[in-house]
């Protein structure tokens, strides 16, 4: 107990550098909590029959407050051509979050993101590297193609495709299957593939091949929360571009593009205080840091 507490304090001092807690650490904490939630949840359901928290990030029940993943809900809606109110209400909060904050589900909650983040941290620790390389780059626009292909293919087949193979949902399902039926479902191999692809390029799957990410990015095109570059402070050192898990160039304003998922890695990496989160309301920019109400 004593040693671990001491160790934690040391790390805190080492990374803090007199600044507030970095976004990266907040994000990792958030990802861990989100992952822990779906990890513990089947155990609670199975062994203690506590059904207060239910499901995983395909449909998440928190008491009587339900969330439905927007892509899954949209496909179900498109394919059956019928509206179902609980499903629509369940989609409302995720859609609103995506509209205002952008793809934050991907970077702050998604369990795949947690696994890849963990993998990244382990790789950095083993390789003693500060930044990981991207070896294979795919055009960022492919994301929209993925989203379209997914929807069109689902409509051709008449069944939602991604719902079953969606990696964010797959993790929850695998954990549930292990706890409930004591087996592993075959499709878990997809997760392994995604983690292996991360060796090639950081967030290779998330960047271009996640239809859910595509939909959230599409919803977040006109989002309010964006990464803003202060050109006066920016020295074009390129640290932010190296640290960006999505392979964007925040220093040339790509933090405001649809592909940015507002993780805040670039803000942490910047040594010249040139990058900030900004809240834009009707074209009028309000900086998050000066907190005006």
């Amino acid at each position, binding site marked *: 107990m004593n040693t671990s507490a001491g160790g934690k304090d040391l790390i805190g001092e080492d990374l803090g550098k007199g600044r507030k807690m970095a976004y990266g650490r907040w994000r990792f904490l958030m990802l861990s909590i989100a992952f822990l939630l779906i990890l513990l949840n*089947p155990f609670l*359901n199975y062994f203690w*029959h506590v*059904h207060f928290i*239910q*499901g*995983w990030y*395909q*449909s998440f*029940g928190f008491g009587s407050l*339900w969330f*439905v*993943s927007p892509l*899954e*809900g949209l*496909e*179900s809606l498109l*394919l*059956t051509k019928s509206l*179902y109110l*609980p*499903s629509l209400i*369940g989609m409302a909060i995720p859609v609103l979050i995506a509209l205002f904050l952008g793809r934050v589900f991907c970077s702050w909650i998604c369990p795949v993101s947690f696994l890849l983040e963990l993998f990244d941290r382990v790789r950095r620790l083993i390789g003693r590297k500060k930044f990981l390389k991207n070896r294979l780059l795919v055009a960022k626009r492919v994301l929209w193609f993925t989203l379209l292909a997914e929807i069109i*293919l689902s409509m*051709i*087949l*008449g*069944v*939602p*495709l991604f*719902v*079953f193979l969606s990696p964010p*949902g797959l993790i*929850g*399902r695998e954990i*549930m*299957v292990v706890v*409930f*039926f004591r087996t592993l*479902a*075959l*499709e878990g191999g997809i997760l392994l593939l995604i983690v292996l692809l991360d060796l090639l390029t950081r967030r290779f799957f998330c960047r271009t091949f996640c239809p859910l990410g595509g939909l959230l990015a599409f919803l977040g095109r006109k989002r309010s929360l964006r990464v803003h570059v202060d050109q006066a402070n920016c020295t074009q050192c390129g640290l932010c571009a190296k640290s960006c898990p999505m392979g964007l160039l925040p220093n040339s304003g790509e933090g405001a593009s649809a592909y940015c998922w507002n993780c805040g890695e670039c803000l942490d990496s910047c040594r010249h205080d040139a990058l900030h989160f900004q809240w834009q309301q009707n074209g009028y920019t309000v900086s998050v840091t000066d907190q005006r109400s």
Partner: protein
Amino acid sequence: MQRRTFLKLLGTGLTGLSFLPGPAGAKLLQSPVATNRLRPPGAVPEEIFAARCIRCGRCVEVCPYRSIIMLDIRAGIHAGTPLVEVEKIPCYLCMKCVEVCPTGSLERIQQQDTRMGLAVINRFHCVAWLGTILCRTCYDKCPYAEKAIRLDQLRPVIDASACTGCGICTSACPVAAGDDRKAINIEPLYARQKVSG
């Protein structure tokens, strides 16, 4: 290869995958619903079930008897959908699953309105009908005894107007007729209905 050619090939390949000849193609599209393989209570007809269900697995997670299983990738396009294998663990009609379904694939219905299927007695296998043993296990186990299963001259008879298709009779039936069948089986009649409108 040109990009256009590649995309064309990719599209054709993916679409054609489901029309593969032989068992591979058929299995990818075939519904898993069959005798003694039923959807949970309140399920919409099989015609639209796969389109409506988002495979969130909440019904599987909430089921206290582990009656509902989740199909894996071998079920093709129906992978991830819930299924009740009644001869193993039947549905005890606790109606918890219908309350958690977020897409309305399982409609919120009352216990007595559940129509997962219809119990059908095979008179060539049922020992009561054959007259070898005085067995009335299905009658004793039926949650709607005297309504769904009556005894007619000590032989069980099903009433379709009250049978919920829960499969408790099937799992209790002592006669194994091979191939996951018993002397009383549940036929998913209502799952084969067409959607009106």
